[in-house]
């Protein structure tokens, strides 16, 4: 398990982490989610020992490692741009940690073979990183980090440099891997879909502070503030209230506390339809309906409809 308490980190005038505390349960997969500059990568690097905090404490498995170098922490780190040893083959890259620890040849051979099988790079052992695709290089990076049986696995936007399809594949693959190995894992990402899909718990960060820590479902259903709510999903604003697109009901006739709006555009996204509406005062709303609902209402461009929130959230300031 990982405990970080009161971490402060400044780069010159810029405060990357403003007294951040977080706890990661052993065996869980936790995501650090936030926009660029939120401090999530910095926090990860502090946990790894690649950055020294100006204040605060880091404990791994109840051991205070704040003063320890990365070599001594037993963490596995996977980098966004792979950090591949470009002068070594894939095999040598994965074997690196084991060779440093002077493991016997036979053990190294066995372990590396096992890992290359696991990440499906078994036939590419003799290639150099320059000859691999991005996805292959990152799988190599993962195998390399896992080779030394780390107590904690840290991934810094591991799929950020890859294209969308490869990203989705590797995301699912990472979750399956975690379910098998149960290594305590922390993944940094700015992609909320990725965090929600892969993690047991999500830590939402903004401007060097933690906004909320919760399982994905709770984050979505009970966001702590406006920032979290708009970061984890699309949101409409009506005065003080925040409403999810799928919580907007559209009626053909006015009924009680409904508001008038005009259908501006219908975007058909397979099973769902995004209905873009505009009110008298120019305010734009976005509702999410199923195909059947749209057909039942016979919605068309330019049509006047009546909007009612089925559920809304208001935050006390």
């Amino acid at each position, binding site marked *: 398990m990982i405990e970080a308490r009161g971490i402060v980190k400044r780069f010159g005038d810029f405060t990357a982490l403003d007294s951040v505390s977080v706890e990661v349960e052993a065996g869980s997969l936790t995501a650090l989610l936030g926009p660029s500059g939120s401090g999530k990568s910095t926090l990860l690097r502090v946990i*790894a*020992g*690649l950055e020294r905090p100006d204040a605060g404490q880091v404990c791994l498995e109840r051991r205070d490692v704040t003063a320890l*170098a*990365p*070599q001594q922490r037993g*963490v*596995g*780190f996977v*980098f966004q*741009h792979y*950090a*591949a*040893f*470009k*002068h*070594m*083959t894939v095999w040598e890259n994965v074997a*690196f*940690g084991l060779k*440093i*620890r002077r493991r016997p040849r036979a053990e190294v051979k066995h372990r590396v073979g096992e890992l290359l099988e696991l990440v499906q790079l078994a036939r590419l052992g003799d290639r*150099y990183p*320059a000859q691999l695709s991005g996805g292959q290089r990152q799988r190599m*990076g993962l195998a*390399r*980090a896992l*080779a*030394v049986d780390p107590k904690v696995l840290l991934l810094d936007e591991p799929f950020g440099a890859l294209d969308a399809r490869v990203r989705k594949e590797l995301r699912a693959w990472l979750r399956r891997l975690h379910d098998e190995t149960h290594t305590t894992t922390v993944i940094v990402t700015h992609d909320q879909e990725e965090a929600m899909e892969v993690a047991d718990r999500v830590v939402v960060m903004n401007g060097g502070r933690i906004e909320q820590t919760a399982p994905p479902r709770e984050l979505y259903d009970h966001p702590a503030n406006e920032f979290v709510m708009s970061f984890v999903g699309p949101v409409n604003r009506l005065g003080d209230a925040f409403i999810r697109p799928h919580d907007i009901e559209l009626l053909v006739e006015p009924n009680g506390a409904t508001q008038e709006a005009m259908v501006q555009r219908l975007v058909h996204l397979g099973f769902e339809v995004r209905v873009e509406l505009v009110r008298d005062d120019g305010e734009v709303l976005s509702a999410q309906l199923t195909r059947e609902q749209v057909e039942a209402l016979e919605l068309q461009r330019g049509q006047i409809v009546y909007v009612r929130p089925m559920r809304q959230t208001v935050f006390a300031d």
Partner: protein
Amino acid sequence: MAANAQALPAPRARRSAAPGLAIGLSTLYLSVIVLLPLAALASRAHGWDAITSAQATSALRLTLLVSLTVALINAVAGTAIAWTLVRDRFLGQGFVNALVDLPFALPTIVAGLTLLTLYRDVAFTRWAILLALLFVTLPFVVRTVQPVLLELDTEMEDAAASLGASRLATFRRVILPNIFPAILSGVALAFARAVGEFGSVVLISGNLPFKTEVASVYVFGRIESGDTGGAAAASVVILAISCGVLLTIGGVRRWATRHDR
């Protein structure tokens, strides 16, 4: 037709003139300035005793020995200096960085004179030659390694640290293999320079035959005694050996960068 506002310039056959001019003129210049004299040198080389005499072989052996030593010392010192200039931070770093280029800028005769003034005790010994050659070759390895160190991805070093490698292991297994080709380039340049060096050595070494006479001074001696044929023969041999060493270093360099292709 009239509606077409923009008239294109009339096509000319100018495309073929400019490249031809550049290639032609520069080849002419190169031939007259470099190739012709070297051809004259090769054609007038004769006289085996100029190459095989005891004095000649002694000068050649001394030159090669000292030049290789200097190249190796530079490999270490140059890398250390490049490292300090790139990875370290200290007051006056910019000044030191500029100072490294001094041997490029300073006339060799002045270099020899300044070394002679301070290190009088080594004058007329082989150490004087070593000293002079170290002076003139200082910038080579530094300047080839520096840009590579600047471009080096520090994430590789972070990765090595996270995998348990100590600073020394990281240097040996990650950094060094990546700067090795640059070190080799610098070594080749330093070696070539050292073999032919004249101005800085001629004052400080005393030019004692069989003791402190380097190849270039030997050749100069042959010229002064009117044996230009012999001097040319010796020059050709020295050039051939230099080329051999440089080609070998080039080959090693190509092997060391095979992962980049």
